[in-house]
C-alpha cells in the first residue's frame, strides 16, 4: 500500500473519530445550575479564603456554581475587556484606579444604589468616605473590597542623625527635613507616583487640578508653580530621589527598607513589604504618620457587578455575603489590610494592637482623616486627564522644563481632554 493511500485511510478514520466525539460532546446536558464568576486583581495568594467563600455561598445557594478567576496587574484590563467584547464578562469584578470609572461611565457596571436602598444594612457596613470613593454621578457602582491610602513612613534613626524629631508638620518643613537627611546614598524623601499617590503634596498646598465643576484645568497658578519648582529643586539637589517620579513600587519601598530613605510617602501595604526586608525596623526606628494637612490618595480595591452579568441578583447576594462583618474580618486577618467595613476594621485593629502594635499603628491611619482623600476625580476620562498632566510634571521635576513652562504646557492638554 502506498504512503498516500495509508495516510488517506488514517485521515478518514481520524475525521470519523472527531465527528463522533463532537456529536457526543454536543449531547444536551440536563444540568440547570446557575453559574457565577468573580474576577480578582492580583490576589491569588487568597485562594484558600476565596474557596471558603465559594463553599459558604454554596450552602446558601446550592443552585449556583461560583467560579473564581485572578489576573495580575497589567493582565486584568486586557482580560476583562476581551471578555466584555466576547459577551462573557465575569459577573463580579474587583478593580481599582480609574478603570471602574470608565466602565461605570460607559454603562458597563450595575448601579448598586437601588440595591443598597433595598438592603440598607449593606450601606451602613462601610466607612462613608471610602464608599463615596466608588460613586459616579451620585450613583454607587462598587462596594469596598480592601482599602488603603497614602501616609508618611519615616526612619527615626535618620531623623536622629540629622538632629530632627517627629514627622514634618508642613510642606516646607518636609522639604527642609529632606534636605537635611540627604547625603551620599541617603535620600531625604521619596514618594510613590503610580495611581497619583504623589498628589497630596500638591493638595496640601491648596493646589487644585480642576475647577469645582470639573470642566477646566485649575492648576496653572503661582502657588502650583512654586510647589512644583520646590519639588524640582529638591529633586535636582538629591533630597527627593528621582525614582520618586519614575519608579513604581519596588524601588522606592526597597530603598526605604535598605535604610537609605528618611521619609517615604507610600500607601499602607508598602509597610508589610518594607518590614519583610528591613531587619532594622521596629517601634524605636520607624514611624508612621499622616502627611502634613492629613491629605492622602486612596489606592483601594472595590467590587462591581458587570452589566453583562446573566445573574446580577445572585451576584449582589454573593457580594452581600463576602462583605459582611464575618467575611471581611477573615479577609483582614489573613491579608493584614482593612476593608472599609467599620465593625470588622475595628475588630481587626483591636486584635492587632495586641499582637502587632506597629502594624496596627500603620493601619489605624487608614481609617483616620478619611474626609481628606484626594487624587481621584469622578470623571469618565479620569485616567486620560492624568495622562495629559503627569508627563509635564515629570518634565519639571526631572529638569527638562521650568515649573512654569511645564504647567503652562499641561493646561491646554488637560483642557483638550476635558472638552472631549
Amino acid at each position, binding site marked *: 500500500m502506498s504512503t498516500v493511500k495509508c495516510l*488517506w485511510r488514517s485521515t478518514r478514520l481520524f475525521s470519523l473519530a472527531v465527528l463522533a466525539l463532537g456529536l457526543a460532546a454536543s449531547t444536551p446536558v440536563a444540568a440547570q445550575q446557575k453559574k457565577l464568576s468573580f474576577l480578582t486583581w492580583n490576589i491569588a495568594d487568597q485562594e484558600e479564603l476565596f474557596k471558603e467563600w465559594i463553599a459558604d455561598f454554596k450552602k446558601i445557594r446550592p443552585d449556583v456554581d461560583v467560579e473564581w478567576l485572578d489576573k495580575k496587574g497589567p493582565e486584568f484590563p486586557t482580560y476583562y475587556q476581551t471578555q466584555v467584547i466576547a459577551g462573557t464578562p465575569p459577573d463580579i469584578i474587583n478593580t481599582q484606579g480609574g478603570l471602574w470609572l470608565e466602565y461605570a461611565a*460607559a454603562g458597563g457596571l450595575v448601579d448598586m444604589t437601588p440595591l443598597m436602598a433595598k438592603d440598607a444594612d449593606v450601606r451602613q457596613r462601610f466607612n462613608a468616605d471610602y464608599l463615596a470613593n466608588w460613586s459616579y454621578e451620585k450613583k454607587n457602582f462598587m462596594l469596598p473590597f480592601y482599602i488603603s491610602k497614602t501616609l508618611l513612613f519615616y526612619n527615626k534613626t535618620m531623623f536622629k542623625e540629622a538632629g530632627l524629631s517627629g514627622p514634618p508638620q508642613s510642606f516646607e518643613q518636609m522639604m527642609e527635613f529632606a534636605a537635611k537627611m540627604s547625603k551620599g546614598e541617603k535620600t531625604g524623601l521619596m514618594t510613590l507616583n503610580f495611581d497619583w499617590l504623589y498628589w497630596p503634596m500638591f493638595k496640601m498646598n491648596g493646589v487644585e487640578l480642576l475647577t469645582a465643576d470639573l470642566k477646566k484645568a485649575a492648576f496653572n497658578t503661582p502657588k502650583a508653580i512654586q510647589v512644583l519648582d520646590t519639588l524640582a529643586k529638591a529633586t535636582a539637589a538629591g533630597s527627593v*530621589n528621582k525614582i520618586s517620579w519614575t519608579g513604581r513600587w519596588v524601588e522606592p519601598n526597597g530603598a526605604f527598607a535598605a535604610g537609605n530613605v528618611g521619609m517615604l510617602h507610600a500607601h499602607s501595604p508598602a509597610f508589610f513589604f518594607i518590614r519583610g526586608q528591613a531587619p532594622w525596623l521596629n517601634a524605636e526606628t520607624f514611624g508612621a504618620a499622616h502627611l502634613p494637612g492629613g491629605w492622602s490618595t486612596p489606592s483601594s480595591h472595590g467590587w462591581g457587578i458587570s452589566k453583562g452579568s446573566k445573574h446580577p441578583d445572585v451576584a449582589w447576594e454573593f457580594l452581600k455575603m463576602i462583605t459582611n462583618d464575618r467575611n471581611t474580618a477573615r479577609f483582614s486577618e489573613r491579608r493584614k489590610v482593612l476593608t472599609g467595613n467599620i465593625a470588622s476594621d475595628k475588630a481587626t485593629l483591636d486584635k492587632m494592637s495586641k499582637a502587632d502594635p506597629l502594624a496596627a499603628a500603620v493601619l489605624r491611619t487608614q481609617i483616620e482623616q478619611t474626609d481628606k482623600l484626594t487624587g481621584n476625580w469622578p470623571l469618565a476620562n479620569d485616567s486620560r486627564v492624568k495622562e495629559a498632566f503627569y508627563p509635564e510634571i515629570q518634565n519639571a521635576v526631572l529638569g527638562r522644563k521650568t515649573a512654569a513652562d511645564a504647567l503652562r504646557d499641561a493646561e491646554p492638554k488637560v483642557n483638550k481632554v476635558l472638552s472631549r
Partner: protein
Amino acid sequence: MQTDKAAVANLTASSRPPRVGSKRRRELILLWAFLLPSLVIFFLYRVLPLLWNVLLSFEQFSLFGASKWNGVDHYRDMLEDDVFWTALWNTLIYIASAPLGIVLALVVSLMVNTEVRGRNLYRTVVFLSYPLMTVAVGIIWRWMYDEKVGLFNFVLRSLGIIDKPLPFLQSFEWALPSVLLANVWQILGFYMIILLAGLQSIPQNLYEAAAIDGASKRQQFFRITLPLLRPSIFLAFVIGIMTSFTSFDLVYVMTQGGPSHSSELLVTYIYKVAFELSKIDYAAALTVVQFALLVVLTWLGNRLSGGDAGARETG
C-alpha cells in the same frame, strides 16, 4: 479456475494505465486536509483579528455599546499626537539597534568560531543572556542603572569618568539608550547562535582555495564569509526587527516608556492607549501604522539582501 480468473483480472488491472486524475485528486484532498487546520487557525487568530483591527481603527469604539463609524479621525488625531511621533521615532531608533547587535554578534561569532581554547564556554556565556526571562533582565538592569547604588555609576565614578552619578533611567537623554543597551545584551546570544551556524556551514575548502590564490584574511572575510553569511544575517535582521517592534516587556519593566514618554515605543504606547486609557479604537489605528511599518521594513530588508530572503548565494 477461479484462481486463473483472478490472475487474469489482476493482470488486466496492472496493465491498465494508472488513474492519474483520481490519484492527483486524492493527493490534493489529503494535502488540504492536512493544511486546513493550520489555515483555519491562522485565519482565525491572525487574519481575522488583523481585518477587525483595521475596521476598528475607523470606528468610535465603545466597550459596552454600539460602535460608530468615525472615518479617518483617529489617523488625523495621530498627526497631532506628540507622543505618537516620539514613540515612532524611538521605535525606529530601537530598530536601528538591531544591526548594531548583529555587528557585535558577528564579531563575537567570529571570535568563538576560531580554535581558541575554551570556546564552548565563551559561547555558553554569551548565549546565557538570551534564555533569561525579559522581566528579570529588566529588573537586574534597572538596579545596575540605579543612581545611588547602581553598578554602572559605581564603576564610572571609580574610574573617574564621571564625578556626579547619572540617573540613567530617570533621564530624558539616557533612558532610551539604557534600555537599548540592555536589549542588545539580551539578544546578542541569539544572533550569535544564528551567525555561528551560518559560519560553520561555509565550506572550508573555499578558504583554502582563496589562501592558495593569495587572498588575505580581510579579502576572505569580505569575499567569502560575508556573502555566504547573507541568509543568516538576513534572518537575524528580520528577527531583530520583529523583536524590536514587540519589545514591550523590557521597556515596560525598566522605564514604562518614561520619563515623560522619552523611552516610549509604539508597542508600549499602544498598550497604554488600549488598556490604560481604554481608547481601543485609537490603539487599533496605531497598530495599523505599526503593522504597515513592519511590512515596509521587512520588504526593505528583503530587497537589501537581494530580494530572495538572502538565499541567492546559497542556491
